[in-house]
């Protein structure tokens, strides 16, 4: 049997390794996406005061510490049975919206975009943000950096620290927003809205304007019919900060909608002998293997799944962009809502729609008259015991679950991070792409391996995070093994 491995350039923890095994006929027999796991996260946490968790868990990821900080802070609200003050909720969501703008911007221009802007078969050395800037102009590069810097400024000011925020407290937020800051943030939010609209225009011009790319997005190679998960507000619209977790089936029908605290009633985890990381699935359907369809408990939690799971967006321009995507990709309205889009590469488009929503939502919040209210903390009077906190991380639904003794000392912790939700779908996407692209006698080129990488890049997997580590790096190595066990192709990046 031939084997193909995509493995990291380094021996970093949290790295991903794709191994593709060919059969005697030279076709893909199987493909695995393997991630090693770190040791001792729970042991590290147990015995510490729970209120340290927003500052500990934001250390397990260098990419979305803000998401962990927020999920942990909300878990503390639940743990201490305290309802945050209205302004605290608004500050948190405003902060979180700024984070989304920075994160989604980065993914599109630096990671997902190069495949489309520079081209999927371009040399690897050019498929990066530098290649994007080279192709579309320095001005866009400058706008990307400006967008990141101004939103990181908001995150630092409101979160109390640059990379790892510290302001989240049970029942609130440690600092209020001054009128002077509010004015500055309003200006930033307005710039964000313009930038998001501009980014959608770039996507339309460069990606949708090129039939080859549209064909790539809608090709069967990158299509899976699965369940979709996302957090929704009371009107079933996308919300990143708070709400109910909704899951729709592959036809778009609501399968379940539950309070995040009840996640264990709905989500179970499957184990495989070839990886330490577990595969979450829908309990109500059951684990049927790495397969698509209504009968398979596999679900996805990504920007595209959030849109699929919702009835729409809560802000006007994002709603327009939402409708445009579903109409353009041929989705029909059934019972008043669009059928899900199953093209995994459309996740890049969905991410930009979310970027616009985050920008508009930030503007709504920062122009809310209450946002400068100094009453940012509710008093804590109850004894802690157990609490669940949940937010939508950019890479999927993020759940923190803590148990403590009556002093608030941790006795147990459980996290389901964004990417973990998507482990089974990513494995399926990688295998399907490999099977579609590698046939008997296919020449293994860098471009071909990149097209396999594209299958998981749409998810922007963060296995550093999924395995509870920090680096933001996820080096990847792909190896293809022949039927006799010899290596016939190897890619590192």
């Amino acid at each position, binding site marked *: 049997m031939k084997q193909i491995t995509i493995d990291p350039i*380094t*021996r970093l923890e949290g790295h991903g390794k794709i191994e593709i095994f060919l059969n005697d006929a030279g076709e893909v027999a199987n493909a695995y996406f393997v991630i090693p796991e770190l040791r*001792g996260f729970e042991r590290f946490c147990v015995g510490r005061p729970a209120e340290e968790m927003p500052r*500990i868990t934001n250390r397990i990821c260098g990419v979305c510490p803000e998401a962990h900080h927020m999920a942990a802070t909300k878990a503390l609200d639940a743990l201490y049975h305290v309802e945050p003050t209205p302004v605290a909720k608004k500050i948190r969501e405003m902060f979180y919206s700024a984070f989304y703008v920075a994160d989604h911007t*980065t993914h599109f221009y630096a990671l997902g975009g190069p495949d489309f802007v520079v081209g999927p078969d371009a040399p690897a050395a050019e498929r990066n943000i530098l290649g994007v800037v080279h192709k579309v102009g*320095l001005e866009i590069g400058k706008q990307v950096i400006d967008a990141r810097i101004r939103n990181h400024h908001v995150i630092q000011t409101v979160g109390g620290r640059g990379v790892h925020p510290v302001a989240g407290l049970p029942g609130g937020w440690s600092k209020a927003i001054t009128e002077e800051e509010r004015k500055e943030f309003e200006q930033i939010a307005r710039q964000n809205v313009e930038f998001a609209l501009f980014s959608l225009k770039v996507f339309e011009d460069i990606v949708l304007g090129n039939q080859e790319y549209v064909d790539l997005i809608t090709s069967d190679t990158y299509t899976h019919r699965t369940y979709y998960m996302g957090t929704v507000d009371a009107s079933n619209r996308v919300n990143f900060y708070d709400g109910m977790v909704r899951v729709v089936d592959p036809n778009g029908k609501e399968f379940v909608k539950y309070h995040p605290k009840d996640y264990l009633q709905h989500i179970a985890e499957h184990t495989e002998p070839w990886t330490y990381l577990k595969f979450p699935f829908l309990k109500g359907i059951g684990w049927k293997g790495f397969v698509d369809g209504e009968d398979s408990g596999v679900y996805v939690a990504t920007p595209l799944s959030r849109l699929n799971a919702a009835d729409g967006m809560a802000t006007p321009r994002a709603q327009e962009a939402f409708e445009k995507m579903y109409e353009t990709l041929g989705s029909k309205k059934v019972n008043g809502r669009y059928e899900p889009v199953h093209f995994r590469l459309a996740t890049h488009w969905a991410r930009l729609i979310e970027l616009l929503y985050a920008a508009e939502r930030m503007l709504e919040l920062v122009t809310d008259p209450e946002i400068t209210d100094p009453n940012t903390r509710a008093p804590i009077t109850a004894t802690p015991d157990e609490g669940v906190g949940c937010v939508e991380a950019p890479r999927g639904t993020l759940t923190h679950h803590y148990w403590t003794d009556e002093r608030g000392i941790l006795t147990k912790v459980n996290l389901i991070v964004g990417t973990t939700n998507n482990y089974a779908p990513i494995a399926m996407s990688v295998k399907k792409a490999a099977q579609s692209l590698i046939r008997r006698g296919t020449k293994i080129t860098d471009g071909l391996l990149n097209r396999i990488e594209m299958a998981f890049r749409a998810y922007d997997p963060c296995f550093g995070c999924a395995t509870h580590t920090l680096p933001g790096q*996820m080096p990847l190595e792909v190896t293809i093994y022949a039927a006799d066990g010899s290596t016939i192709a190897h890619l590192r990046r």
Partner: protein
Amino acid sequence: MKTLVLGLGNPILSDDGVGVRVAEAVRASLPPDVPIDVCELSVGGLRLMEHMLGYERVILIDAVQPGDAEPGTFRRLSYAELACLGPTQHMTCTHDTSLVTALEMAQRMALPVPREIIVYAIGVQDVESFGEDLTPAVARALPRILEAVLQELNISTQKEETHGLT
């Protein structure tokens, strides 16, 4: 010369946090009123580049990948050497790009990138276990690494003084 000392790593992941530990020790050793900023970070790629903007000189302290160097040993690398050798533990963010690419982009956009970047790359043993302690060999090396970095800061200051004469 406006200087930034940047310790990279995760302080709760055993040896991974060695860069942060060295940076903390540098901060504690600096005399008051020295125009040197010290910070700790755990980001790579674009965000790391953005933190360097506006500084003329940056000294990065980071772990190298386990197995690439004996635990507790360290190397001083120039930026040119780094660009050839590849990144240390925390320089690349695979969610965006490598530090080298990020800096090249910043340069093209005429952003104020540092004139000089020096990397202290430290050999480590365990970066896979959660914990606040360094492994013994790395912990023992801490004073030597600190001394080298402090010396670097002094030597560079002297260099700057002669710079105006040439």
